[in-house]
């Protein structure tokens, strides 16, 4: 049962074959069985999840009108506030903090009766590509426990691949939904910036952060997308427009007549041969399904990574200033006679990990008087150029595509001491965040050389998110008929797995 897609589970719930309590319990059992190996979860809310499940079952019994995913369990990235449930962002500095309020995403999940199982592991404050930066220890990739599950949302992606949850929420600042999806053989979508409310998403880089759905199928992602998206007056950057018709697009999966642009700059040197091979195959499948494949160029993407590592740290240096031990979270050095300043300093010294400190220092420097124009100012100009590159490309093509990541999952510890090598992992995902457009990653198979999953990225213009789902669903269907079964059916079975 736990290996079903969320939509299959939803049908079984609707037909009464299974109750939400049974379904939720099955997932809690799987978590209990495998999470010691995977470490996808930081907090499991057994009681809350079962109570929520029982409530949905009651509503169903009473004949209430329910949303499509009502009663289906979900794993929530620990960067989203949920009232009364610990929210750490993978950081020591928030250890023990229980938010007094629900993020809008959580409020929407509850409104849709989606059962929240618990909070998933992540790189501290979403800074990283491997989940190794979590203060609570790394998450392991269910495909190979010695490898990283991607990051920052490695916990959410690993939970899906380990059948601990059929749905998950991620957040994506530079690829934190899509890259984990790619390396775990799951589906992850970063909606258009402003498509999903950021209220209650603990900010890393406000102008880049975006929450989105993680799932095992394109349709499941679409159903979750519709459940969490929409205008929110509490987030002034939220777009006041109807949610794109992503479920309809995912159900149709039609690419006939669509122009698909291959981004020249996001392929080639630096991309693993197995990654490139799966990418080429996917293009052939899409062409066979009726799409026209064209090549587009985005010359300024070359500067995206450099600009990203100025903008994101700059914003983070300011966003993370609030963690000062005054009102919540960790407090260190609060001894008789200590000044507020020394408590702040000691708390931040102890409470933040190395990568977070590195980025705070980078950002503080980039915003400093005398350096602002050269760093932050130039980076903003690059951002405009990247947006222009996308605009031009979208004049030629309806969607753009690329491999999601240059490589498959690397070994835990392999790049831990080389931040630049780590940053390069996001080279293909970052331009999407810089331009505020939508991006999706779905599995395109495993690389021949290592047998590990490869991700296929689809990018669509602002608020044209449905196009990603059309293309994604079409490719997913073609691959499924080629393979005969979903990619995840070939994942090694974890010890003790249900």
């Amino acid at each position: 049962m736990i290996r079903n897609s969320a939509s299959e589970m939803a049908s079984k719930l609707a037909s009464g074959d299974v109750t939400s309590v049974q379904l939720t319990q099955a997932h809690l059992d799987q978590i209990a069985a495998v999470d010691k190996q995977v470490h996808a979860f930081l907090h499991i809310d057994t009681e809350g999840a079962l109570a929520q499940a029982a409530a949905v079952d009651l509503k169903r019994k009473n004949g209430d009108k329910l949303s499509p995913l009502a009663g289906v369990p979900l794993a929530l990235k620990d960067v989203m506030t949920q009232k009364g449930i610990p929210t750490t962002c993978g950081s020591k500095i928030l250890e023990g903090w229980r938010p007094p309020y629900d993020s809008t995403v959580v409020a929407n999940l509850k409104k849709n009766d989606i059962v929240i199982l618990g909070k998933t592991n992540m790189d501290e404050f979403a800074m990283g590509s491997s989940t190794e930066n979590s203060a609570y220890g790394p998450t392991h990739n269910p495909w190979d426990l010695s490898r990283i599950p991607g990051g920052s949302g490695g916990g959410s992606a690993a939970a899906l691949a380990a059948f601990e949850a059929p749905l998950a929420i991620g957040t994506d600042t530079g690829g934190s939904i899509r890259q984990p999806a790619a390396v775990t053989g799951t589906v992850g979508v970063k909606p258009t910036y402003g498509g999903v409310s950021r209220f209650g998403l603990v900010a890393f880089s406000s102008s880049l952060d975006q929450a989105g759905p993680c799932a095992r199928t394109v349709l499941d992602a679409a159903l979750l997308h519709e459940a969490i998206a929409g205008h929110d007056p509490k987030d002034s950057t939220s777009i006041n427009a109807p949610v794109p018709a992503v479920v309809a697009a995912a159900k149709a999966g039609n690419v006939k007549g669509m122009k698909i642009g291959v981004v020249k700059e996001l392929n080639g040197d630096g991309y693993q041969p197995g990654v490139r091979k799966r990418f080429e195959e996917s293009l052939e499948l899409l062409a066979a399904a009726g799409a026209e494949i064209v090549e587009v160029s985005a010359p300024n993407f070359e500067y995206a990574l450099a600009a990203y590592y100025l903008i994101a740290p700059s914003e983070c240096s300011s966003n993370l200033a609030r963690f000062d031990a005054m009102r919540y979270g960790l407090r260190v050095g609060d001894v008789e006679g200590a000044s507020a300043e020394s408590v702040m300093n000691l708390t931040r010294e102890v409470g933040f990990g190395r990568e977070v400190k590195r980025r705070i220092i980078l950002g503080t420097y980039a915003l400093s008087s005398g350096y602002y124009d050269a760093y932050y100012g130039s980076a903003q100009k690059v951002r405009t150029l990247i947006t222009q590159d996308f605009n031009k490309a979208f004049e030629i093509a309806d969607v753009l595509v690329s491999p999601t990541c240059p490589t498959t999952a690397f070994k835990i510890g392999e790049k831990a001491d080389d931040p630049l090598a780590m940053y390069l992992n996001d080279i293909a995902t970052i331009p999407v965040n810089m331009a505020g457009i939508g991006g999706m990653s779905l599995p395109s198979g495993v690389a021949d050389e290592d047998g590990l999953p490869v991700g296929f990225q689809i990018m669509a213009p602002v608020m044209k998110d449905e196009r990603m789902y059309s293309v994604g669903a079409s490719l997913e269907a073609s691959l499924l008929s080629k393979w005969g079964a979903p990619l995840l059916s070939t994942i090694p079975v974890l010890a003790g797995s249900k």
Partner: protein
Amino acid sequence: MSLTYDDVVAKYEPVLGLEVHVELNTNSKMFCGCSTIFGAEPNTQTCPVCLALPGALPTVNEKAIESTIKIGLALNCSIAPFSRFARKNYFYPDMPKNFQISQYDEPICVNGYVDVEIETDEGPKTFRIEVERVHMEEDTGKSLHVGGATGRIHGAEYSLLDYNRAGIPLVEIVTKIVPGTGKYAPEVARAYVAELRDILRSLGVSDVKMEQGSLRCDANVSLRLIGAEVLGTRSETKNVNSLRSVERAIRGEMIRHAELLNNGQRVIQETRHFQEDTGLTRSGRSKEQAEDYRYFPEPDLVPVAPDAAWIEQLRAALPERPSIHRKRLQEQWSVPDKEMSAMINADVLDVVEATVALGADPAKARGWWLGEISRIANEKDSAIKDLAINASDVAEIVALVNSGELTDKLARQVVEGVIAGEGKPAQVIASRGIKVVSDDSALMAAIENACAAQPETAQKVRDGHIPAAGALIGAVMKETKGQADAARVRELLLGHLGQSSN
């Protein structure tokens, strides 16, 4: 070797720069829905947004934008079609986010001016104060440092934080440099702040209570030798919490700077704190190791792009400018310049206007507020507006005098009673038993008694020596304990003694 003020202005020209912070009187805070009521229990008017809980986001208070645009228009500013919020980053425990949302290089209002008129040796003169910008920001919380000698953080045993004020909408009005005011600099500054306060009050956008901090002035002062072009080093004086303090602080800083310069020392660019008791300033933090605020555009808020038609609507609805309003009142009431200035200086113009609006004669209304009521305020060392008497009380008292139910003397007792908290005029009259003796037979008895007691004086009056009547009237008033109408007593007395009362 203390310099006099005259010595200072004989040698140096002061250059001013004034930054006024105004707390808007919106019902909710700048970026969240919390209440803004002053004086609530600490930390009861807070929410995830203004406490900067992780994940919380600001949203802009539309009313605050409207108020700021109104202020900009009233100060003759251009309203920017596109402006942006920015983050000003610095750590301080009473600032929950450790950055303040403010505006930096793209403020909402720019390039305005305010004309102020002051009395000079050559008569009234108008000075134009140019306004560089008007921008929006949020207030910080309040720190209460306990155990230190001066209420400062240094030496305090512990500090208490109240975040009720955190996020209250603030508007900052910044002037360009103000040269050319010479020896009148302190008065021009005071007049400017007073004019701003009047404008803000007329717009209804702020309580403008300097003593509660809803209007705060930071005064930048520098001196240069008369005729010099290069500006001197400035100091910025904070905590100036009354109009009088604005004047005193600037005067004091001018003398302090001049003494330093005359001694060959340099003025340090720094923040100074005004001390109400001494009228002097003390050094705050030095701005020479200026904090780097690392301003950058606030990514959580979209730019402010007010609709041009809306701006015109707000412009059309602006109230009469206070200076013009004053001129109109002066004409309507036929008040001499001096009296007008007296009312403005005593800050009673609006209450006089309100009293007149309730039917009192302008001269009488003015007389009460500037006279008896001012006197009592002085005695109590209190602001006139803080006394427990209002325009309707005074209007009622004036009406009672007009109808002869009170004499001026009795009316003063009523005023005193109202101010003493004994209630409304009618209650004071009743409880104190104040009553004009208007019963002629009672008065006649008193007159006869007086004449009988002073037969020689009565005879003088009968003989046509009218001024002698004063002594008899005095005796009657004494007998009636001052409750008689003196004019009526005189009339009856003269009739009784065979003289016409005219």
